[in-house]
């Protein structure tokens, strides 16, 4: 693991670890907050984090992309509604839909951007209690066959931080039924629905399984001492999964 300077940007060069050849891009929009955290999670898992800027017109040579959390453009319009028009988003959408099936993970605001970009169905509205909520959240892994969840056991419960204002997942009944029928509900909230999300849905994937979006934050549960309950590292599975996908051809 290389040092992350708190000032300025994180390093993007090869880290020298065995998995360092896998390059995972982390996109920064104006107002993105958890980009440095997502990059750290990539490095903790042994891969190399690559800084991507929303205004870039070419997708650098990356093997996967994470769209991290935050309040891009302040969420002043609708969360993710402006970011989806960023030049880089067009490239990401094309790569995700191409035969190469670029793995894409959207976390929190990133999930909102993925729905706005129509890579994933549905949308997020304000939490039903109308407040920002930060808490350690138990999730059930409903689908462990995606690019970002194959390191988990099916039905496994994991604990990762949840923190958002607009986290209530909604879609029409037909879409929800289709998600359920096709096994595309990837994560469900356990121990009480924190925000009124339909059918307790915390995260979903596309049919190919390369695009996953969820509201909770796996990148905040990757280091002992900094995750849920001071010890939780359940989020590491996301990053192990994508490395499985990239290196093992899963």
């Amino acid at each position, binding site marked *: 693991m290389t040092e992350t300077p*708190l*000032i300025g940007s994180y390093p993007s060069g090869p880290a020298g670890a065995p998995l360092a050849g896998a390059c995972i891009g982390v996109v920064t929009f*104006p*107002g993105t907050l958890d980009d440095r955290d997502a990059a750290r999670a990539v490095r903790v898992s042994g891969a190399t984090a690559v800084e991507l800027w929303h205004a870039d017109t070419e997708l650098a040579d990356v093997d996967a992309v994470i769209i991290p959390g935050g*309040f891009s453009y*302040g969420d002043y319009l609708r969360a993710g509604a402006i970011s989806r028009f960023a030049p880089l988003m067009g490239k990401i959408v094309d790569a995700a839909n191409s035969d190469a099936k670029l793995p894409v993970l959207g976390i929190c605001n990133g999930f909102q951007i993925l729905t706005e970009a129509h890579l994933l169905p549905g949308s997020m509205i304000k939490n039903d209690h109308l407040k*920002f909520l*930060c808490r350690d959240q138990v999730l059930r892994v409903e689908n462990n066959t995606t690019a970002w969840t194959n390191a988990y056991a099916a039905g496994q419960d994991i604990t990762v931080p949840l923190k958002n204002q607009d986290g209530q997942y909604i879609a029409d009944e037909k879409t929800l039924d289709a998600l359920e029928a096709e096994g595309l509900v990837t994560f469900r909230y356990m121990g009480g629905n924190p925000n009124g999300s339909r059918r307790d849905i915390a995260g979903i994937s596309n049919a190919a399984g390369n695009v996953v979006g969820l509201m909770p934050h796996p990148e905040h549960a990757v280091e002992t001492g*900094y995750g849920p309950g*001071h010890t939780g590292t359940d989020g590491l599975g996301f990053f192990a999964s994508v490395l499985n996908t990239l290196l093992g051809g899963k």
Partner: protein
Amino acid sequence: MAEISTESAQKFNIDTVENAAATPDVELPWAELGLKQNEYDDVVKVLGRRPTGAELAMYSVMWSEHCSYKSSKNHLRQFGEKVTEEMKKDMLVGIGENAGVTNLGDGWAVTFKIESHNSPSFVEPYQGAATGIGGIVRDIISMGARPVAVMDPLRFGAIDHPDTARVMHGAVAGIGGYGNSLGLPNIGGEMVFDPIYQGNPLVNALAVGVMRHEDIRLANASGLGNKVVLFGARTGGDGIGGASVLASESFDSTKPSKRPAVQVGDPFAEKVLIECCLELFKGSLVEGIQDLGAAGISCATSELASNGDGGMEVELTSVLLRDPTLTPGEILMSESQERMMAVVSPENVAAFEAVMDKWAVEYSWLGEVTGTGRLIIKWEGEVIVDVDPRTVAHDGPVYDRPYARPEWQDALQADTFTGSVQDAGRPATPEELKAAVLELIASPNMCSKDWITNQYDRYVGGNTAMAFPDDAGVIRVDEETGLGVALATDANGRYTFLDPYHGAQLALAEAYRNVATSGAIPMAVSDCLNFGSPEDPNVMWQLAEAIRGLSDACMELGIPVTGGNVSLYNQTGTTPIHPTPVVAVLGKFDDVARRTPSGWAEDGQAIYLLGNTAAELDGSEWANLRGHLGGAAPKVDLKRERELGEILINASRDGMIDSAHDLSEGGLAAALVESSLRNNTGARVALDEVAARDGVDIFTLLFSETQGRAIVSVPRSEEVRFNDMCTARHFPVSRIGVVDAAGGALDLQGLFSAPLDELREAHEGTLAKYFG
């Protein structure tokens, strides 16, 4: 647009310096702008003529209480005077800059500061609290640092007063809405309810930032020919007169609403500004930088110019406006948020503009640094301000306000809780004691604050090693080494009301103890002094005594004050708030992995009580619950605090303890419950022996607020070593119990056993009950 601007030019620009000199008898609205007669006379004397309208606007805001510290300056000097060379050794930047800077070692430095945003938060709680966070964060950026966390000590009126809900919902949502959007973890603070704050809620905000030594930036404009630039949000009509009018006068119901004087925040603009400034610093593209807070451009230009080595000349029509009808005076006074002013050398202009363009931040070049020693401000080329910047920024009035110990102070201190009417029927039986503990932990001040802290992001940044409700917030600074900082803020208005000198020391002692309890070595202090009107001699005495007490205690504990803020006029009519000096202490960890959490975790570990307990119920939460306030504040023993701190820090460093929790408000009863509920892990505790040792009854042992105490849990394998360390230091220590993970209860043996579920229900239901 052009037409409006021409119109406004004609309407407002006639008052040039030339015009002012020619028309000495023109009446100016100095009283409406908050200046007193003697102060206006001083302005005229300094200038040798009457001020122009624009100059009057500048002097009125910069000479306000809020900006000039005119009532407290003579007393605040003690923070700079009562300092030893030893205390200065880690201080890289002291009082007077935007925030003090402390050396952390390994080339790292940390800057932190606490400030008030009280009056705006009462008028408009959401925006008031939000912009409080915004302002303190910009102070941290101006030093060259990346902000890494915020904290917010809050004090509101009675929990069941209808207006408290308005302030509570607004302020908490504002702090969350702004802080969460900046990506800054909120790692702690305080929440106190007391009717004394009903019309004067206290919303204080702390921010902390870190930087490499070489990145430290100061607010000065030097280098002849360097360019002056204003960047960030556009200037609007919000907050005009906020500093001079709002923060410097008491609320009076007969005057018109001052709502427009509160600024409106845009956290997205601030987040972009943070990243953009850090990129400027990284490229060494600015020579000096200053944030725009109270008094806006007036403050930024006059402070930058007077801290530099020359003068400054700016063209005010170059300022980008949201509202084109603003007058020159209003532009100078506007407190629009999310703005910064920088001094850039000509060769860096292009690079500076490239960074602005990358982040889509608006900027305008206003002028340049000159060698005249004068601050010249022009409006379409005509001089409307021509002043020595020092007279605006630093040579404001200083008052030696009369102060007197209140006549009622003796009677107040003689009215002790023990034996009072309110003390009748003091709990004694096991049933009564259990009911008392449940009542205490469910009370507004002692209940769980999850309702608030769950609205704040404590994870963002990925460096939060501890956050509320642990004793201190802990942030990792260097991922490689684990180097980090701990922060705690504390104050007790009731103690300070009973005894301002010692009350201020108790605030410092508690914050110091909290930092040490987390395992960090206390290093520096920032304070936010919230008081009533300095024009009341009794309040002035409270302020003078608190500053004297705090500065003496800092000297004794060996930690310097590096910055802070004074908030006066917190009173409704003639009733001031309790004197409330909020003290923040910053500590250092060589490795935050060594931090000590407050909750019990491991079954079978021994629980020790450090320190003695005396009968000190005056000013306590228990007395407060019974409606009593009188007597003597708990005794201050700073030598004892220092010894306790050393024990807690060494025990943490050497792995002798797995948890530690300080005893403060609510005493041992509150600490035991909090340590058991933190991880839902109970304990068996026996108190008879320690009560006998200290000569107090069980009620007193549980509810007294004697200082210099903590409870720790010690692994069996470390007990001998831990005991030996305490004994060698002659520090009182007593084994009072054992962690019992399976029992599911806090079992006070021989008294009562309280199931954790029952304690949790009492502790966690209160805020939701009142605030939904």
